[in-house]
């Protein structure tokens, strides 16, 4: 076993074949029969999932000799050099769980992120907007997992992807095709020497062709790789939009900068969440109806701020009324809040401003691919599954996929398997599919449960939240799920 696992892998595509390919092309510049450019892994999509996968493959001595290509429609050099002043934050942020952070550290990427822009948080306040039943997620002294008391790390997506790109540049060895859109994907040809009829060929705008032993679809929710592989993604639209914004608060939070809290309130229209960023800043994720979302985007800043404050504080009836106003929410809020009793420390500190240009919205949907693998194809991240953001798990699920796929490829290389073969990819599917399915089901049911405004379900669910709050072990379970420690149970 040892001597096998210790073996270093050389690229499956032997160097001499590649050399031959190149020299032949030079010699036969005018020939139409250009030799195919063959890669062990072609990854379409340089988002968080694709970049982590390639970094993992390059960082492992077992897989570092694979011949790898990355295809991304965006300008990657812009993302790599992404920089914002310390008091400005991007509106697309994700909660990285400790297990995602550990993985990023293992592949050497964590140190390349701007750490002063990452905000760990240690508590969660979750409550029902209709009944006010509440659950406080903070670690009981003896229940904290050994990884520390951090529930998650709020990270700008661009901080993550630019850090990954820097780490990848440091590792080197990936043929990067940036600003390159995949036009279509076809199959290879049979020649006298080789039979590539089952090998995917990625055709880029401009005519470049990349032949893949393993084609990875990390190309997001509308994955062209998934369509090529004929894999259906099923699900539904929630009829909700996610509104995001970077908020300025009156202070660093009730616990100062050492003890930060994430807040989420379930409203009949969907959950509204405020997640801490460094200093006085927080990021907003509000799922609501498309009409409400477009109102929020239209409002003058002071009215937007008032409506966000109201969302964490006023009754659903008050909120509903304020959504019918085309402006003037600021006055309405100051009047109504005086008459609404609340305990200030269990809701976020007051929002005082919004960073310019950070209010945006996107439609929420739930999609799950029928499978994550096909012959010479694997899907990771949003290409495989799109989830309701209320659990903050979308990006973390992708990191889980990537970790599993990288391990699967490593095992295959160590045992001489064809890394594109369906048989070699089966362990990845087995490890990830059910885990993702269960998590998606839970988030979906939470959404439905909390989208009801009155009636027996409300009292039942408050009973549920209050009961969870008083049940230590169950709470620990829920929290460790959020923090990514409990994957074994799923």
């Amino acid at each position: 076993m040892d001597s096998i696992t210790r073996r270093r892998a050389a690229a499956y595509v032997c160097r001499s074949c590649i050399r031959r390919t190149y020299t032949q092309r030079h010699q036969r510049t005018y020939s139409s029969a250009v030799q195919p450019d063959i890669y062990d892994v072609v990854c379409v999509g340089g988002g968080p999932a694709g970049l982590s996968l390639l970094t993992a493959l390059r960082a492992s001595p077992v897989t570092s000799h694979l011949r790898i290509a990355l295809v991304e429609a965006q300008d990657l050099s812009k993302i790599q050099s992404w920089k914002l002043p310390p008091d400005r934050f991007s509106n697309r942020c994700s909660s990285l769980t400790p297990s995602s952070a550990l993985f990023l550290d293992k592949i050497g990427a964590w140190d390349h992120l701007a750490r002063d822009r990452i905000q760990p948080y240690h508590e969660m306040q979750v409550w029902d907007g209709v009944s006010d039943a509440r659950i406080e997620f903070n670690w009981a002294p003896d229940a904290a997992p050994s990884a520390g008391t951090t529930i998650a790390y709020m990270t700008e997506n661009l901080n993550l992807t630019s850090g990954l790109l820097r780490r990848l540049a440091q590792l080197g060895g990936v043929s990067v095709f940036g600003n390159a859109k995949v036009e279509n994907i076809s199959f290879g040809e049979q020649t006298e020497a080789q039979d590539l009829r089952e090998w995917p060929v990625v055709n880029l705008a401009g005519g470049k062709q990349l032949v893949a032993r393993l084609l990875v679809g990390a190309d997001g929710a509308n994955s062209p790789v998934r369509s090529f592989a004929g894999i259906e993604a099923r699900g539904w639209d929630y009829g909700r939009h996610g509104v995001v914004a970077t908020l300025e608060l009156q202070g660093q939070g009730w616990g100062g900068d050492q003890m930060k809290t994430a807040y989420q309130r379930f409203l009949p229209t969907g959950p509204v969440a405020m997640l801490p960023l460094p200093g006085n800043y927080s990021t907003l994720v509000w799922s609501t109806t498309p009409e409400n979302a477009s109102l929020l985007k239209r409002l003058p800043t002071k009215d937007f701020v008032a409506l966000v404050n109201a969302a964490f504080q006023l009754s659903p009836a008050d909120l509903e009324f304020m959504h019918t106003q085309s402006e003037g929410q600021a006055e309405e809020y100051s009047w109504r809040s005086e008459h609404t009793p609340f305990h200030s420390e269990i809701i976020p500190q007051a929002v005082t401003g919004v960073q310019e240009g950070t209010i945006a919205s996107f439609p929420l949907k739930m999609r799950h691919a029928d499978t994550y693998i096909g012959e010479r194809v694997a899907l990771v991240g949003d290409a495989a599954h799109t989830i309701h953001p209320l659990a903050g798990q979308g990006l973390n699920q992708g990191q889980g996929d990537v970790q599993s796929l990288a391990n699967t490829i490593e095992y295959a290389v160590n045992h001489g398997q064809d890394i594109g073969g369906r048989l070699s990819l089966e362990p990845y599917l087995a490890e990830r599919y059910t885990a993702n399915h269960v998590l998606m089901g839970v988030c979906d049911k939470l959404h439905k449960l909390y989208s009801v405004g009155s009636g027996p379900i409300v009292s039942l669910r408050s009973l549920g939240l209050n009961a969870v709050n008083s049940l230590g072990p169950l709470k620990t379970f829920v929290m460790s799920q959020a923090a990514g420690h409990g994957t074994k149970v799923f």
Partner: protein
Amino acid sequence: MRSSLRHTPALLRHARAARPSCRVPLAAAVQSPTLGAPALALALAPASTRASSSSSVNPSEISHFNALAATWWDPHGSSRILHLMNPLRHDFIGTCRASSPTVTSSTPAGQLRYLDVGCGGGIFAESAARLPSTASVTAIDPSPGVLAVARSHAARDPGLTAEKLEYISATIETLPPGGGNKDFDVVTLFEVVEHVDNPAAFLDRCGEFVKPGGWLVMSTIARTWTSWFTTNLMAEDILGVVPKGTHDWRKYINEDELRAHFRGKSGWSSPRVMGVVYFPGLGWKEVRGSEKIGNYFFAVQKNA
């Protein structure tokens, strides 16, 4: 191919998919077993003429494997269980080589030369050729249909160059002996000994191709009451989940018989064994002691 059939019908059903390639003449299989029958002792009796050109090939075996060729590389076909077992072969070879202070190699970079006898569609041969620690793999099989499948499958992988992987239509008796540097660091016979006539002579002939310090590595299935009960009586006669005549239980060879065979020869040492069991849904797992009842790996090292 031959996995240990366990007692539950569910397992028998799973095992069935793995089995059809192991067919032997009906007449032989329907006879009831006599445990410890002299047939096996005879089968493993020292070969009178080493390196004889008399063939180990049983013609009905060959036609059977020819018929199977088409589905060899279907991941859900009849060879699925063999595909799943393949990584363990590498693990076992790795443990054998790690266990001995004498380590051979065939290139300055420490790479190995493999001879895979009875390679079939090339499941092991291809995987060995892909390892960066491999100098080359020579793979032989007497079934022409099977070998054609092996060749055309290898052509689908541009990484499997002619220098790395060579298929030869041959039996071990017709393969010209290498000698010296041309000998092999590892000679493998996976799921083959139970299909050959004169296994003792066959093993001796294969052994001639091993370098001093190199390993002769094989896998097969034990001949026990359990394997007779599960593969012959239950699977074929009572449950009927495996076509009658699929198994010639009398051709199964036990690990202690293999040990005794090589103990009786000079020039071999360090016998190693690993029993494995197929668990549906989990795959093949090493189970200590299971070599006495079902599938197992066996290896011996040629004295340096």
